[in-house]
């Protein structure tokens, strides 16, 4: 073999191929994250300015009732969306795991909503939930005259319609994740538990579900980030209304930055959202990167 130190194309090609992506990621993700953080400490309005005002924009942000309302909506939506998706997804996955016929077809049907964009989901559910054309109209036409289902125009209930549409879209995907987890479990474990005297309920609650902890974590992380960045679904379904009753932080950020010309406060809200995501992600990454010790 030649002793030459010269590095050939084999050495440079992979680096060359990856570098455009790296540059794009550095500039457009991390670059703009830094720039946005920077802007949030200035008094920018329509156009970015570079006069530092410290935490002023953050103070204004948290004094703004619309922001607090948006944050509260996020809490309600996030908790219900993640919770219901997990329960529905897990139950469906367990039912599908019972060696039923046509499992492939059923799995595909449940997974299909995930293939739609949130805009489509939002639009379809807007019509379904519209009292004059949707479910309410249909049930009344069946003869139940007093039936009322008008959550979408009720400011106190509208956020729950977002939950319904979100669950419809994402629970099939959660089911697929759980199903993969269930399939990863050695079937002889179930047999062993049966011989140990456990019924099917105990097999699931005491052995299978506890041993799927990593799967739960993955599902939680995916749902949490869908919840925090939810924007298109709300825009298509309720447009943030009635009034501001279904505002979420992403809508707030968009409207203040690009429609109301308050770039500073918009940037501050974006940074808060980033912090929320990091607050979830960092412990996750920490636990993921730490585990390989004992396999």
């Amino acid at each position: 073999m030649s002793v030459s130190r010269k590095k050939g194309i084999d050495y440079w090609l992979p680096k060359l191929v990856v570098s455009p992506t790296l540059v794009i990621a550095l500039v457009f993700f991390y670059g703009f994250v830094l720039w946005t953080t920077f802007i949030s400490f200035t008094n920018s309005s329509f156009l970015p300015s570079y006069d530092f005002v410290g935490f002023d924009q953050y103070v204004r942000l948290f004094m703004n009732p619309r922001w607090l309302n948006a944050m509260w909506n996020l809490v309600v939506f996030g908790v219900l969306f993640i919770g219901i998706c997990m329960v529905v997804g897990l139950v469906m996955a367990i039912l599908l795991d019972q060696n039923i016929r046509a499992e492939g077809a059923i799995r595909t049907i449940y997974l299909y909503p995930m293939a739609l964009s949130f805009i489509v989901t939002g639009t379809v559910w807007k019509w379904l939930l519209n009292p004059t054309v949707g479910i309410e109209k249909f049930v009344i036409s069946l003869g139940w005259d007093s039936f009322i289902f008008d959550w979408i125009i009720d400011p106190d209930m509208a956020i729950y319609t977002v939950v319904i549409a979100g669950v419809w879209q994402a629970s099939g995907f959660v089911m697929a994740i759980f199903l993969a987890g269930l399939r990863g479990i050695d079937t002889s474990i179930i047999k062993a538990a049966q011989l140990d005297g456990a019924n099917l309920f105990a097999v699931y609650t005491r052995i299978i579900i506890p041993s799927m902890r990593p799967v739960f974590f993955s599902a939680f992380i995916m749902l949490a980030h869908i919840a925090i960045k939810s924007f298109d679904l709300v825009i298509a379904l309720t447009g943030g209304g009635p009034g501001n009753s279904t505002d979420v932080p992403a809508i707030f950020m968009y409207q203040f930055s690009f429609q109301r010309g308050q770039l500073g406060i918009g940037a501050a809200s974006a940074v808060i959202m980033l912090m929320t995501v990091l607050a979830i992600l960092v412990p996750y990454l920490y636990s993921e990167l730490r585990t390989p010790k004992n396999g």
Partner: protein
Amino acid sequence: MAELKIDNVYKSFGEEHILKGISLDVTDGEFIILVGPSGCGKSTLLNCIAGLEDVTTGDIILGDTNVTYEAPKDRDIAMVFQSYALYPNMNVRKNIAFGLEIRKMPKAEIAEEVARVAKLLQIEPLLDRKPSQLSGGQRQRVAMGRALARRPKIYLFDEPLSNLDAKLRVEMRTEMKKLHQRLGTTIVYVTHDQIEAMTLADRIAVMKGGIVQQFGTPQEVYDDPANMFVAGFMGSPSMNFLRCEVTRHENDYAVQIESQGTVFQLPVDPKQADLSNYVGKTVVLGIRPEQITHVMPHLVSEQFITQVPVKIEVTEPTGADTLILARINDQECECRVHPQEAGKVGDTMDLLFNMSKAVFFDEQTEARL
């Protein structure tokens, strides 16, 4: 502990018949091994005993009760799986205690039982570890501990040693035998490894194609095989099968073999087979490699021993013995000789054929004559 009676069990999946009329009687405290090539139905039979699969027809009677239609948990059976099937979310202690907790045993008794089993299997230091932190041999012990903890009527083992490396497998085999001798439990054990079957079993059931070919003690199965399949499956290196013609020889019979152009008559021990109907016909001579040895002067004059020169085609030293591949009747024949007596490839070497344990099979039916 209890006896187990399997009565004419059939198991079919649609048109596919896996078990075709299995009947076995296992007495209390016996160590039974089901052995056979993959796909012979041995694991299915084990699952049927456990109740993890329903039998199509037939009965399984455990002790005094017919358990054919009982759920696995009501049969009072413990099973050790090939993959060990330890509960990954529980530590060793909880793995062992799980079956007892489900059966609502008082806490203090559970702790006592776990301690007893852990001591028995020497896994006390492992009790607080998770299965993922154990080695293969340790997992195997824990799986056994879990089975032992409940003191069930009968233990089932589904290829428990096949995931271990060769050395550990031999160690665990010995340990399992000791354990059985100490506890005197009824065990049904599935394996595809005929050495495991020979060394462990009180009785072996050799299975093929969903049928028990032979059910007997290891020595019976080895010396007195029911048919060519059993003869070929048990023993390593396996028995030689030589097609040869039967002739009259003095008052008895002999089979004719040819080596390097010379024909030899091997007298047949009348205790082994009556070949009176086969004179002039071809039979299959089954002779184990250890019955074809180098020349030992004190044996040469014995009645059923014949000296035959053969040409050595291949030699395989195993340390204790050297296996020699020779050509007899234009068929390959393996012989076991002392390493120092073994010749080189291409040499001609005199071998002694000892016919006192030879067996004979019908060429067509492969049944024992």
